[in-house]
């Protein structure tokens, strides 16, 4: 874990995000100097309050109250007309002194104010999830619901930490607890035979044991399947655009985004860097990235771009292969085009692919349709024209249908992130060893117990640790033990 997480300094970050323009943007400042130095970046409109803040007479300032204020830049110039609220410790989200600054929702303003706060007060830009981490550290998060502590402790990347913090939710616990309870029962029934077999205890009922095991396996499997179906909607889909130079990737990108974001020109290889945008298709978040055209080139910068575009495929869940309909219609051009289709298909692996036959306004739809059916692309091809807008709706519907189940809104997922999914998959792996062993008549119950325990340990990364005392407790309270 980053050293910063253990520091007790003052931190600042945008609470609403720096990527999207919106009506307002909120900054949070937390730490020992948050309140003390607030006068260095906001000037309250109310004269009395303003004087109190400047003289640090905090007792006379209202807490958890929105004050109108001028927000100051690094050079003390007014850069926004905003609101500010003060939350003295411990009555704040993080449990420390906190200040919230409400700005107009231009990320540029937020960036400037963060810069101003960092420069003028010595605060530090927060690490990811650091406010929540501090809330946890200060006992503000409900400890009884902390399932992800293991992960919190062991997270080595800020992303892992964020995932852990995310799963600090009662829903996961409500899902996991009964499963752990059932697994505990299974272990207890094994332990009963192992530790107490010299006493008059009941003999293990294997068919009941298997039934209970299958029930747990079923619930785990269902949670994973459900997560997989809902994951794109929950986390968004990363989309990359791939195509031969000048196939119209950037134009399509811009049409989807709805603004002139990419540099569009007729010269091959204009898009040298990756350009990213986020859009929503009826609630489905798409993270679009426009990569450079793929072709053999001796241009150093362009090669770099090609390399990047291939990497983008790796990181995306949907690849839009943009094909110039004009080129697809020409027999002479089809060799490099086919090579591209082949290469992308290989690289795509499990990722979804949609072949977008662009510029149909320049091509012959019948020829393209023939091309599509000849190359076995019928199920995942769309014919569009970025210029006329033809086929764009169809493309959008196609994308949605690839990722969004129709009953999406009815599903409430049991788990929330990939890390949790992996833990469940690991547990399922252990449990299937157990059921295999039972079916092949393996007698070593201690090994069965080891595997179930491993499953519990995997799941406990979501819900808290298990201990042997709890299992013994269970044995004592449910079975007749007596020597």
């Amino acid at each position, binding site marked *: *874990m980053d*050293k910063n*997480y*253990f*520091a*007790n300094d003052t931190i600042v970050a945008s609470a609403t995000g720096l990527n999207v323009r919106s009506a307002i943007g909120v900054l949070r400042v937390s*730490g*020992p100097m948050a309140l003390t130095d607030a006068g260095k970046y906001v000037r309250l409109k109310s004269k009395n309050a303003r004087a109190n803040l400047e003289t640090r007479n905090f007792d006379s300032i209202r807490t958890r109250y929105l004050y109108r204020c001028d927000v100051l830049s690094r050079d003390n110039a007014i850069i926004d007309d905003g609101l500010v609220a003060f939350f003295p*410790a411990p009555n704040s989200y993080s*449990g*420390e002194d906190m200040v919230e600054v409400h700005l107009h929702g231009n990320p540029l303003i937020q960036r400037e104010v963060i810069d101003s706060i960092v420069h003028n007060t010595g605060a530090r830009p927060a690490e990811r999830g650091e406010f929540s981490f501090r809330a*946890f*550290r*200060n*006992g*503000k998060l409900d*400890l*009884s619901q*902390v399932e992800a*502590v*293991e992960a*919190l*402790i062991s997270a080595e990347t800020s992303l892992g930490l964020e995932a852990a913090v995310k799963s600090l939710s009662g829903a996961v616990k409500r899902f996991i607890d009964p499963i752990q309870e059932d697994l505990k029962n299974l272990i207890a029934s094994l*332990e009963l*035979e*192992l*530790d*107490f*077999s*010299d*006493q*008059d205890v009941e003999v293990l009922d294997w068919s009941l044991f298997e039934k209970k095991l299958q029930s747990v396996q079923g619930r785990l499997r269902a949670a994973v399947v459900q997560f997989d179906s809902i994951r794109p909607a929950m986390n968004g889909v990363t989309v990359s655009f791939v195509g031969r130079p000048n196939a119209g990737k950037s134009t399509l990108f811009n049409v989807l985004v709805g603004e002139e974001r990419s540099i569009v020109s007729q010269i091959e290889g204009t898009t040298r860097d990756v350009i990213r945008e986020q859009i929503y298709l009826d609630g489905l978040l798409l993270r679009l990235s426009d990569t450079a055209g793929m072709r053999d080139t001796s241009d150093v910068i362009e090669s770099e771009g090609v390399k990047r575009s291939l990497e983008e495929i790796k990181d995306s869940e949907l690849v839009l292969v943009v094909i110039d309909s004009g080129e697809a219609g020409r027999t002479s051009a089809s060799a490099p085009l086919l090579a591209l289709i082949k290469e992308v298909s290989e690289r795509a692996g499990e990722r979804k692919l949609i072949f977008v036959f662009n510029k149909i306004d320049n091509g012959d739809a019948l020829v393209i349709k023939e091309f599509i059916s000849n190359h076995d692309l019928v199920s995942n091809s769309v014919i569009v024209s970025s210029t006329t807008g033809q086929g764009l709706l169809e493309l959008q519907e196609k994308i949605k249908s690839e990722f969004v189940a129709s009953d999406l809104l009815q599903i409430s997922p049991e788990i929330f992130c990939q890390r949790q999914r992996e833990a469940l998959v690991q547990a399922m792996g252990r449990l299937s060893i157990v059921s295999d062993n039972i079916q*092949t008549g*393996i*007698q*070593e*119950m*201690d*090994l069965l*117990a*080891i595997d179930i325990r*491993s499953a519990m340990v995997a799941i406990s990364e979501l819900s*808290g*640790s298990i*201990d*042997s*005392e709890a*299992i*013994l407790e269970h044995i*004592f309270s449910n079975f*007749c*033990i*007596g*020597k």
Partner: protein
Amino acid sequence: MALLFDVIVVGGGHAGIEAALAAARMGSRTAMLTMNNDHIGYLSCNPAIGGQAKGQLAREIDAFGGEMGRNTDRSALQYRRLNMSKGPAVRSSRAQCDKVLYSLNMKKAVETQGNLSVHQCEVIGLIVDKGRVCGVTDNFGTKIRAKSVVITAGTFLKAVMHCGASQTSGGRAGDGASDSLSDFLHAEGFNLVRLKTGTPARLKRSSINFEILERQDGDKNPVPFSFYSRPDPFPFLEQLPCYLTYTNSKTHEIIAAAQNDSPMFTGQIMGKGPRYCPSIEDKVFRFADKDRHQIFLEPESLYSEEIYANGLSTSLPVVAQQRFLQTISGLEEVEIARPGYAVEYDALNPMILKHTLEVKDLPGLFCAGQINGTSGYEEAAAQGLVAGANAAMHRINNGEELVFGREEAYIGVLIDDLVTKGCDEPYRMFTSRAEYRLLLREETADRRLAEKGKNFGVLSDPDFEKFERKYRYFEDICKKLGSTYLYGGQAEDRGVFEALGVGALPDRVSLLEAIRRPRLTISTLREAGLLSDELILTGEVEAWIADRVLEEVEVSTKYEGYIDRELKNLAKLSKQEFKKIPTDFNYSEIKGLSNEVRERLIKVRPETLGQAMRIPGVTPAAGALVYIQLVRVMKGLGSHAP
């Protein structure tokens, strides 16, 4: 008698014996002070050593150089290894012992040990000087000084025996209680708690109709408890059977009707008894839906006509005992030789102890056995070993301590549980208490502990040489089995192999590979003639040791995957487990800890983060907070209050 020793051990029970022997073997001038020289190593309750998880403890004591295993082999009337088919980790040895011989043999072992003298007296107080314990005072007014004192008072502190309404002072039928020492400890500020245990009636052999009962014999090829030597002949004594019978609804009716006379239910007994070893009246009450309970009738001694009724621990009035016993099949005409009773005694909260079993706030004082809240001979002996060795280290004074990890030995699990969690009922070992029980298999105890035992001077050099010879043989035999092949092309090999019903024989497979198959064991290979005695019995070690080695070769080969995974899990855990918490660690600085958890942490003063996490009530979240503060301290971010 001498008035100056290195180590004084108060008590001559199973804890006291191992404590005194370990200290003496390490070269300390040691005194064992006991209230009755004739009752050294007395089997006060069940005439048996070992059993589930307890067998593992007994093996560990032996591996380290203790006496319990050897003495069991000198006194055993029946050997049984339990759970043989339930998995490699849970195989446990148990032996019925002749309680007369066990005690006599143990007395001899103690009396003939160099550096050790045994004295009959009652210790009534400790000599405390400048915050250190440096001796004891006995009932004759003698002051005996020592560098350290180990108290192994068993059930004797302020002991009261209950049988119906009758209450008698004494820690065991026929023996007195030790009230003064209890008073002394109380006056010194020790918080003592009341615990309770019980024992069943002993029955007259000739009054039991064994003819109609199910007989249970011992193993055909018994394995000795000791790794290093076995008596000749082996088994040393005539082997005796046990018998099985059951209570019935009539028995339960009588017990239920007598409940008003049971000191357990009238409130006469306040102390908390063990849940896993409840009295029969407790069982009838708690498990009312159960129509019968199992009873083992076990021989007490070749020199005694008394039979131990295992499963019938009781403190009901003698008349009620007689009445319910007679309802049981085989006991219709039974005569009680000694009635069952409960005993209540003072114990301390083991959370005041370090892992060395030294009292944190009173250096020089060590405690072991039932005084620490445990039950069982093996649990007591294991603690005695650790307390005695650490008491002896005071003389050597090189800063070394004898502490076992939870991954190293059940002894480690036992002591860590005690000092971390305390106990509010008598504590018994279970295999399920060990996180790494596959690594703590009973037959690996010497491999885990012999070297440590030798380094501490408890295990003798000749025994250690036997250990080294054994593991040289282990390596040799592995090589041989790995380079001796069965050939599918040879009709004879193939025929025999396939007759075993363990699948087809491939073109070429080593014997070591072959035994990875489920249901194929070294002994089946031997019986089938695929593995010759010539190959195995090289004369490097005696045949009985070779057999034990072969079992270990088989287990460690067959379960290699699981064992490797346990080792990997262990390696993963170690970082956190062994992270040291400084003694001056300031828990008050951690915001977010509940007061209750904070108080517990301050009370236990855990030595490692792993231990902190095991304290009851310390949730993973609280553990994380401790961890965070530890990292802050290590990074010098110390105590800046936000």
